[in-house]
Every structure is written in C-alpha cells, then in structure tokens.
C-alpha cells in the first residue's frame, strides 16, 4: 500500500470551499484520505499553491488531430514555448517528443502533466472511427481521458427526431455511446454536417435539413431530451450553428434560449456551449465585425441552465479541427489555406485547416479579446470553463499565458495598446478591470469540470477524491499576479510536482514516471427498456445492412481498445 503526505500545501480547492489555506494532504492507494501512517513518503510543498489536477474539458487530443499532424510536418519542429514544444529527445522516462499545435501522443501526455493537468475530455469521437480515438488515448501516457460522441448529424438521430420517437432516439444514443465507448453527447453544427454531404450548410435554427425534413432546433431539442432521459453525467455539449460568422451571436442566443425548457435529470446544467468565443460575433459582415460579448453575457448572467467554455485565441499559428465540415471549407477558402475534409457516412463530417492569429489583423485581435471578455464579464465563475479549444484557438501549452491575462488587467492593457485602433474600437475588453484570483482560476480549470461532467472523484481534493494533485512554485501571498506575469507564467508552465492517482509523475518540471491513464465511458443501457431497445436495434441493423460499409459486428469498439477502462453506468431512478 503506497502512502504519501504533502505537507505545508497552500490548498486552493473551490469544490470544498478551501481558498489557499495551509494544510497537509494525505494520499493512500491513489486516493485522498484523512490521514496516513508515519511511514508515508513526505513531500514538503513549502507553502506552495496546490490544486487538484486540472481537467481540460474541451480539447482535441485524439482522432482528427492525427490529420492535423499529417498536414503539418513543419509543426513538429516549431518551438515557440521552450520546454513545452518542438522536438525533444527521449529520456530514461520519456519517449521522443515532437510538435507544437499537433504534438505526438507522448508529448501530449508529458506536457499536459507538466501544466498540472491530469484529465482530458476529447471534444469529438466520430463513431465509425472510434477505435482510432481509443488507440490514441491509450498512447497518451499518464492522463485519464474520455471522449464525447458526435450525434448532431446522424441519420438515426434525424429520423427519430422527425418521426417523434424519443424513446428510440434515447435507445440509439445509449447504443452509440456503447459502440464508440463515449462519455457524452456532442452536437456540432446540427444539420449542417448532413447538408455538407452535398456541399451545403444550414444557416439558422429553422432551416430544414434536405432529405431528412428536420431543423437544427428539433435536433437540438431531441438530443437534449434524450440526454436527460438517459441521465447522462454530462449535458449535451453543443457547437452551435454559424460558428465563426459575423452576427452569429443571435443564433447562439436562440440556442441558449431554446434550452431553457429542458428539464434536467441530474444536478448539472442542461446545456454546455463549446468555445463560445467563436459564437459571440456581432456585425453583419467582416467589415462590421465586432464583439457581441455584452449581448451574450447579459443573457448568461441571468440564466442558470448552462455552462460554456471560452475558446480563447492565442496569437500565433494554430490548427483548426472540427466536425463542422462546411465551416472548415469556408475557412480554407477565406484564408487561402490548405484544406482537409473527412465526411463520415451516416454520421458527421470533419475538417482540418491551419490558421495564424495575428495581432495585426483586426478580426483576430477582436477574437482574442472576446474570449477574455466572456470569462471576465460573466459574474459567476461556475459557469465558465477555461479552454482554448486546443489547438483551434491555440495550443494548450499556452494556457499559462492565458491564465496570466485573466489575472492581470495590466498585462491585458499592454497587449491592447499594441493592437490596431480599429480592433480596440470593436471590443469591450479595455473597460474591464476585473482580475481573477487563484480561487476563480481553480474553479474554471478544476471545479466546474467536476460538476458539469458529474465527476465527483476528480477536480477537487476532498477525502475520497482521486489523488490527482498539482503543486505550483507559487507562494500565494507572496506574488502579485497583477504585475508579476513572467513569474506566474513560469510557475504554471512547469509544476513543482504533479501527482496522478497517487504517483508522482512530474518533479521540478521534469517527467519522472509515466503510468498509463484510464479511459472513462458511459453505459446508459440501464435507462432503456428492452422492448424499445429491440425496436431500435431493428432500425440500426437495417441501416447497417443497406447503407454502412462496415458490418455492425465490426463497428462496436472491442474491450481490447480500452485496457484501462472505467465504466460509468446510469440507471432510472
């Protein structure tokens, strides 16, 4: 039995209401416990800032990121964040590392661990390619993972929504989660992916999807209700229609309002909005492009049924990757960039396009501001999840830079001064002097994830939680995050110590052990009656026989692809 005690930790643990209090943390067999024996290993935190392992609740870490790698061999040598990017030699503990926006799997595991992250939520599993996602999961060392399965353009889903068969829809989703070993329901540009099968798109919640006779509004509502019927730990996770278009905030507002009517069956939000920055644009054209943060945050501040993540932009090169196929084609045309696409039969699409966010571009500068505005203008941090939609808005290795921006009005002001006047006129950031403290930052990087995914065992340091712990080289009362940006960034870029399931994996910013991580998946079949399941299976099998190019028997992800599984089951109350 392994025992460990971290002494003199300045614990910041919002779930348990602890704000930088000096205390000891006892660890036994990978869990936080009340106390340990005198023979326990001792780590002296020396008063350093100590938080639960962080959770990236929306990242692209496995699956189509591999297409991003294939498109950008130059990315492998890129080294803008030394220690967290570029080519690195193997060590006795680590494999060779490559890349910046699209690092290899090993680098993903090591670098996230260095930042104090211990769990990742992959934003999109394409069902037909689910084995691929799980193969990459298994190749990413140290971290625990789960993935959200794409349902927003699925033929079964659209048929059941149109035919008003909510029970069969729920049965299909339970089956799909099992087939793909997914954790939750992801919806990307509902209806738009199917339209992209013919090179088209949808532009509003009420456009009719050709051949299927449903609207994005109906798809969203159907999926939200099925999600609740299955009592899934996470709400539907929505990438709204019209991503990236000037004036799209109206579609976003409509989507948020639509979900007011959803009755949740678990103690969490009814809707999570992904990378809200990309959906908070005003103006009717690129010329008129402006921040619509005030309209969006006004609504969110008065609502209690939703959460969102930022999708913060980081200046410099990034790689966009999304199931929003039509968006990526228009990105590529607009940016004159190379374009990859991958439609998946009966299910969804995907695209990958490189991008460079330039502080000289007025659009990019406004985008940069909107992410920060959203986090700072929403009063309650328990609605805000920190992300860059890595690597869409920028690589996760830049999180420390973004943390520093959220914690310092002065640092923001320094950057704003270098931006084009046109951009500054179109943003509201310059008037915001709010600075986050460590507690609020811990909410956005740990606490909210624990709640929004109903993962009671992670994201906090209470007794019984997984011993996923990050110790940063910061003495909370001896630093002024408002002015000491570099010191802050350095500390957040390489932990003094990261502990994963009770194992020390990072010491003084270096990887010292690489245990395998686990993969969570949700089995909701307990919420589906046998009769309904049988009826739905008849439809599913029929579609496989006639339209898929693989057999149903070869579609289900086998146990071999999850050597370290954690199955979460849901049941009817």
């Amino acid at each position: 039995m392994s025992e460990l005690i971290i002494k003199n930790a300045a614990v910041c643990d919002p779930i348990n209401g602890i704000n930088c209090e000096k205390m000891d943390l006892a660890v036994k067999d990978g869990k936080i416990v009340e106390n340990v024996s005198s023979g326990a290993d001792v780590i002296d935190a020396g008063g350093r800032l100590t938080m639960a392992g962080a959770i990236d609740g929306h990242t692209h870490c496995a699956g189509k990121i591999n297409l991003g790698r294939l498109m950008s061999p130059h990315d492998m040598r890129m080294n803008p964040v030394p220690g967290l990017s570029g080519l690195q030699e193997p060590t006795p503990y680590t494999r060779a590392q490559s890349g910046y926006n699209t690092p290899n799997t090993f680098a993903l595991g090591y670098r996230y661990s260095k930042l104090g992250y211990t769990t990742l939520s992959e934003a999109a599993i394409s069902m037909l390619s689910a084995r691929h996602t799980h193969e990459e999961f298994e190749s990413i060392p140290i971290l625990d993972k789960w993935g959200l399965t794409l349902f927003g353009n699925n033929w079964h889903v659209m048929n059941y929504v149109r035919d008003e068969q909510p029970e069969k829809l729920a049965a299909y989703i339970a089956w799909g989660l099992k087939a793909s070993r997914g954790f939750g329901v992801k919806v990307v540009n509902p209806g738009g992916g199917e339209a992209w099968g013919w090179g088209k798109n949808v532009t509003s919640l009420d456009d009719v999807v050709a051949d299927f006779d449903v609207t994005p509004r109906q798809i969203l509502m159907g999926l939200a209700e099925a999600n609740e019927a299955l009592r899934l730990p996470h709400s539907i996770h929505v990438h709204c229609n019209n991503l990236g278009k000037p004036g799209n905030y109206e579609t976003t507002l409509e989507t948020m309002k639509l979900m007011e009517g959803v009755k949740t069956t678990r103690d969490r939000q009814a809707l999570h909005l992904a990378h809200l920055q990309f959906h908070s644009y005003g103006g009717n054209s690129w010329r008129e492009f402006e921040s619509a943060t005030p309209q969006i945050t006004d609504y969110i501040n008065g609502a209690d049924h939703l959460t969102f993540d930022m999708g913060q932009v980081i200046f410099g090169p990034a790689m966009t990757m999304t199931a929003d196929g039509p968006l990526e084609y228009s990105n590529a045309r607009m940016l004159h960039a190379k374009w990859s696409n991958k439609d998946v039969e009966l299910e969804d699409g995907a695209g990958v396009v490189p991008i460079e966010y330039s502080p000289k571009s007025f659009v990019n500068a406004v985008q940069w501001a909107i992410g920060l505005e959203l986090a700072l203008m929403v009063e309650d941090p328990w609605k805000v999840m920190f992300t860059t939609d890595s690597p869409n808005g920028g690589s996760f290795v830049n999180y420390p830079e973004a943390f520093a921006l959220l914690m310092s009005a002065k640092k923001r002001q320094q950057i704003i001064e270098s931006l084009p006047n046109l951009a500054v006129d179109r943003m509201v950031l310059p008037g915001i002097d709010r600075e986050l403290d460590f507690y609020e930052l811990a909410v956005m990087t740990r606490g909210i994830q624990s709640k929004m995914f109903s993962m009671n065992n992670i994201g906090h340091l209470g007794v019984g939680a997984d011993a996923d712990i990050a110790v940063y080289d910061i003495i909370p009362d001896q630093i002024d995050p408002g002015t000491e940006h570099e010191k802050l960034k350095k500390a957040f870029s390489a932990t003094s110590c990261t502990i994963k399931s009770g194992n020390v994996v990072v010491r003084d910013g270096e990887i010292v052990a690489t245990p395998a991580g686990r993969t969570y998946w949700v089995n909701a079949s307990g919420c589906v009656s046998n009769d309904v399941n049988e009826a739905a299976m008849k439809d599913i099998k029929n579609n496989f026989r006639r339209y898929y190019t693989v057999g149903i028997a070869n579609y289900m992800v086998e146990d071999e692809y999850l050597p370290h599984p954690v199955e979460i089951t849901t049941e009817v109350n």
Partner: protein
Amino acid sequence: MKVITDVVCPFCGSLCDDLTVKVEDNVITDIQRACILGHNKIAGVCLHERIESPMIRKDGELVEVTYEEAIEKAADILANSKRTLSYGWASTSCEAVSKAIQLAEETGSLIDSTANVCHGPTVLAVHEKGSPAASLGQVKNRADLVVFWGCNPVHAHPRHMSRYSTYARGFFTKKGRKARNIAVVDVRETDTSKLADKYVQVDPGCDYMLLNAIRSVINENEDVIPAQVAGIPKEEIIELATMLKEARFSCIFYGMGTTQSRSKYKNGDAVSSLLYDLNQYSKSVMIPMRGHYNVTGFGQVANWETGYPNAIDFNRRLAYYNPGETGASDVLLRGEVDSAIIAAADPGAHFAQEAVRCLAKVPMIQIDPYHNATTELADVVIPAAVVGVETEGTAYRMDSIPLRMKKLIDTTFKSDEEIVTDLIEKVREIKGGA
C-alpha cells in the same frame, strides 16, 4: 467445424469485412465472399509453403535455429549497428507497427513503410495542400460520379466497385451503377476503363497538365487551354470538367498511376487543388487507392507516435523527417545503412537494383510468414504468424477507418508484435550489459 462471420480480409486497402470462413481441425476449409486475391491470401496460410523455422545464415546457408537464438542474433545485429534501416510494416497490425517504432527509437534506426515506393507522394501532397476526403460510405450512398485516375480496381481492388463505388447501392443511389457515371483516366485501356462511361487516355507522365487544364475549366478559364493537353482534345477536357461540375457528389480515386509517374506528389497536389476549387460548385472528394491492407495504419500510428507518417530517422534520437533524404530508398541508394530489419514487405523484389545491392551487403533481419526474394539476402529469418488469419490486430482501410482483424486459426508462429517485443527486450539487455 467452426464458422466465423464478419471476417476482415487482410489483403488490400479495401479491407472488406463481410467474409465468412469455415475452419475444420484448425484448417481453413471454406472462404465466402472474398475476391480471388483475398481468397488466396487467407487460404494460402494453410496451402502455401511457409518459412517453417527461424533461421540464421551460417557459411552462406540459412540454418534452422530456435526463436530464442534468432532473436538473440537479431538483437545483436541491432545493438551493434550505427545506422539500421527498419522497413516494411505495411502488411501487419498497428500494434506491431507501434512496437516497431519503439524499437527504431531505442536503436536510433530509420523506419519507413512501403509507402516509400507507393503512396508516399500522396503524403507529400497532403503536406502541401491537404486531403479533402470522405469515408467510402459517402461514395456508396451519394456519389453520382466516380473517377478512377491511374488505378485499376478490377484487378487491384476487386470488390471495391461492388462494395463502395461503381455498383454500390446506397441511400441516394438506390439504382447502383445506373445511379452514377464512371470516368477513368489512365495511360492505357484497362479492364476498369472498359466499364467506364467516359474513358480519357492521358499521355504517360502528363497527368499534372490534364488536372490543371480541368481546373482551369472549373474556374471558367477555358480560354487559356490550348487545343490539346496531355494528348486530350480541349472538347474532351471540357466534357470531363463539366461532368465534375454538374455532379452532385463526385469522388476521385487515384492510384500509383498518379503517385509514381512523372510529377509524383505534384499530381496529388493538383487533384487536391482541383477539389479546392470544384467544391465551390459541387461536392467532391478524393480517396487514395491504398494497396497493402494496413499501409494506411502504418501512417496513422507513426503520425501519432512520432509526429511523422513515414521516413522517420531516429539517428539523432529525436524524430527527424525529410523524405528524399530519409526514405528507405534514399538511404539505401546512398549506401548509408549498416544493417536492416525488414518486416512484412519484399524490397528484395521491389526496390531498385542499386538499393538491393546495398541491402545485400549489410546484415539483414527478415520477419515474414513467407519465403520471398528478400529471404535470399537475409542473415536472420524470423517466421511470423499471418495477421488477420493467425493473429488479431488493428488495420486501417484506405479511407482511414480502423477495423479489428480476427484470429481464425491457431498457430505456433509468433506474431510480429511478439517478435518485436522480444527484440526490444533483448536489445535492452545487450545495451544495458555493455
């Protein structure tokens, strides 16, 4: 008797997954729905002559030894070389590829797949311009125009046309062949071109010109096209471009006729560039006709584990990639390697003579179920189980869809994955002791 359904065929990149195989007394007695190529591959496991035992070359002759002796000898070669070439790995599982990459990293080797002499230029084209693709089911369900460019599925991917393309019946294509037009571009008439609605015979090595001429028509710049391009009259070029533009969903399947002819990767770049413009008017995608059943899988695994899809050089300990310099043929033609490990491929038969000469000079380890030309040059021969028949594992279809290969019969042969795992252990032992 055992009847195994939904068997995935371990022959070509079509990865048909609907075979039924009967097994009696651990012998395959019946195979249903496989094409002749797949049938021979699966049946051949029991019918064809195998490498029966591990062998080591002594005084010029291959002498039978145990697995342990062969692994030890092979590890000794790897541990004592400065520049090992690790090549092949296309007809094996992703799990074996993963181990092979680890072995390459630990021994500072250069690792490359058979894409080096096949669809390697396709990869370069993706670097340049991207990959506007789709899963094969999109073609089956939607395509009203299929173009085969520089490929001949009738012979190379025999069930492709019935399962995915020409004849496939899908949701929007219920009439199958009648629901779509087929165009073939090739340098000579083939059994595939005979089935086409439109056959275009391009002058050898001139695909790039033809692709760009079509693109000019798509972009309404046909006035810049001369009366004839690549041996094709202007009217025919306009006709082909119009077919593409007026289709609701088209797919260009392209083969080695584009990747290994003049202009190489620029041809793939030109297809991609054509689609980049064409998609403003109508939906169109491209899919490479990958040959070996899991050459796609090698690229996938290598990409996520190293950042690069092939031609990866670990000589500097970190991953270095520069195809043209670090491809298998490149290092062999420069006479740079001092040992080689070849698995699931036959460079002895398929590489340029100059490259094979280099291979013959250095100590070489072969891992393969069958005797082939490379065996004649090998110093250590390690027989392997056939993936998808005697052992399981993952393979990626030509459209990057992963499928699980089944184990159909028992074997005493070790799998590629086990052999490489043993090699890694042994090499560590030797290096640790040194």
